[in-house]
């Protein structure tokens, strides 16, 4: 056993996987912006963007290109280092979260199996939570370094909102962990494939987790840190060009990753519903492809629900936000946790 016995193939395999996942995140984030505008159009009896290419599918490219060519403005009174750090941190935390998500069944070759997961660590889901908490700093640093009162208010709102909603999110998660007995994402998926999806056993937990995910992603109705009409775009008000692009993009990547986490925790991950896919005896790579597509379908559906909610309801007031988080969701999540614990104990006799 060498401490430094690094398998080069292993590194290469992980590097390719990481590149693929980052590319995928960017691609999905790009087309989520397109879907956002398209769905917004449809829900408001409009067409949405339909001029750039067939059905407007090149719209995200045009938007990205526009952001690249915008003038870069850094306010004189801002703290330069932190001003640059903010969007970078937001982007990094958004991307890092996807490391522990299992994207499909492993590809089995004669050299061994390649798991479609960057890191299947024992503390799995906790990594997601710890990185998401760091994500607050992206907003806080950006808002503070801008040296602008609106940005600062937005940053404070964002921080308090994230802290308040991480609690019920964690409590809803604990009930899931009671059922799986493991923090490993792959085992959470395997458990659901064997015993049925967690959404069936934990409908309340799912709703709480979903609501908190909306709050964590700063999506309507919890978009108080952005608050276009009261705070002039909130924490990224002073940002321009690709730094603004990074913030906006990080938000969509966060949406994508949180959809992936919700799908993995509650909707069976890459498990195909109603069938026993192990009995099909398919080629391993084909199986991986199918399971990956199933996960992507679930993620797409969740993204659609995210967008659908955004174009349905207005923003919460700050007191409503705090009341909902502390007085409603936390008691509900505690109740859910206690009931789950009691039922698990009773079942185990």
């Amino acid at each position, binding site marked *: 056993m060498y401490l430094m016995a690094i398998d080069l193939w292993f590194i290469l395999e992980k590097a390719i996987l990481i590149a693929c996942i980052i590319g995928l995140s960017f691609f999905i984030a790009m087309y989520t912006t397109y879907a956002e505008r398209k769905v917004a159009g449809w*829900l*408001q*009896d*409009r*067409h949405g963007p339909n001029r750039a290419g067939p059905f407007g599918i090149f719209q995200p490219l045009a938007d990205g290109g526009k952001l690249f060519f915008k003038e870069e403005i850094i306010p004189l009174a801002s703290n330069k280092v932190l001003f640059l750090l903010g969007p970078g941190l937001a982007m990094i935390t958004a991307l890092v979260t996807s490391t522990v998500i299992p994207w499909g069944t492993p590809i089995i070759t004669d050299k061994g199996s390649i798991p479609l997961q960057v890191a299947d660590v024992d503390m799995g889901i906790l990594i997601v939570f710890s990185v998401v908490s760091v994500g607050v700093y992206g907003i806080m640093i950006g808002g503070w370094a801008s040296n602008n009162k609106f940005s600062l208010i937005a940053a404070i709102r964002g921080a308090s909102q994230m802290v308040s909603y991480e609690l019920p999110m964690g409590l809803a998660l604990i009930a899931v962990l009671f059922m799986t007995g493991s923090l490993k994402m792959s085992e959470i998926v395997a458990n659901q494939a064997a015993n049925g999806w967690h959404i069936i056993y934990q409908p309340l937990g799912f709703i709480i987790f979903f609501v908190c995910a909306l709050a964590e992603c700063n999506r309507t109705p919890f978009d108080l840190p952005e608050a276009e009409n009261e705070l002039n775009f909130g924490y990224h008000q002073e940002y321009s060009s690709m730094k603004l692009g990074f913030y906006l993009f990080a938000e969509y990547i966060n949406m994508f990753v949180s959809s992936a986490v919700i799908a993995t925790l509650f909707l069976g991950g890459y498990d195909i519903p109603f069938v026993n896919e192990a009995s099909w005896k398919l080629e391993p790579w084909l199986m991986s492809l199918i399971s990956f597509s199933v996960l992507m379908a679930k993620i797409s559906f969740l993204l659609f629900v995210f967008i659908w909610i955004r*174009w*349905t309801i207005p923003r919460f007031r700050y007191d409503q936000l705090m009341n*909902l988080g502390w007085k409603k*969701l936390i008691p*509900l999540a505690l109740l859910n946790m206690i009931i789950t614990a009691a039922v698990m104990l009773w079942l185990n006799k």
Partner: protein
Amino acid sequence: MQLTNRAKQVDRKPMTFLESIYLWNIVKGMGITISHLFKKKATIQYPEQTRTFSKVFRGLHVLNRDAEGRENCTACGLCAVACPAEAITMEAAERLPGEEHLYREEKYAVKYEINMLRCIFCGLCEEACPKDAIYLSQTFAPANYGRKGFIYKKEDLLIPHPVNEKDAYQKALGNRVEKN
């Protein structure tokens, strides 16, 4: 005092717990929005599609020609007098020998300008004209970058020649033929 029977009593009861987590109301709202996904879109895809106007729509002015392509306008100035917005200016000139194929009568307008920014599209010029020389068409003034572009000269207003430019003339006429 009741003014209408549409007044509704506002419910100021404190919310119950279920109401206060907003879930049911949000689901109801989402039902409403999703129903709009399948509704007919209100958009008119402008350059390809255009809105159909009513028959009496008053749009851009057209200076008319007769069947042989001679200008009807005699620069009498009645339209300019009738114009409440004072948008019309013109300069008259006498027809020279050999110009009979250009102008129908002995006097014609060398200069005829309508300021489309002043014009209120009331159609009084059309009513004032004794020679059927000006009428309001079914198109509206396209956008322009400068104010100058909205001052329409005689060349901009004249209808295409009915003999020399048949297709353009028919297009400019639109559904006006049916009206006569």
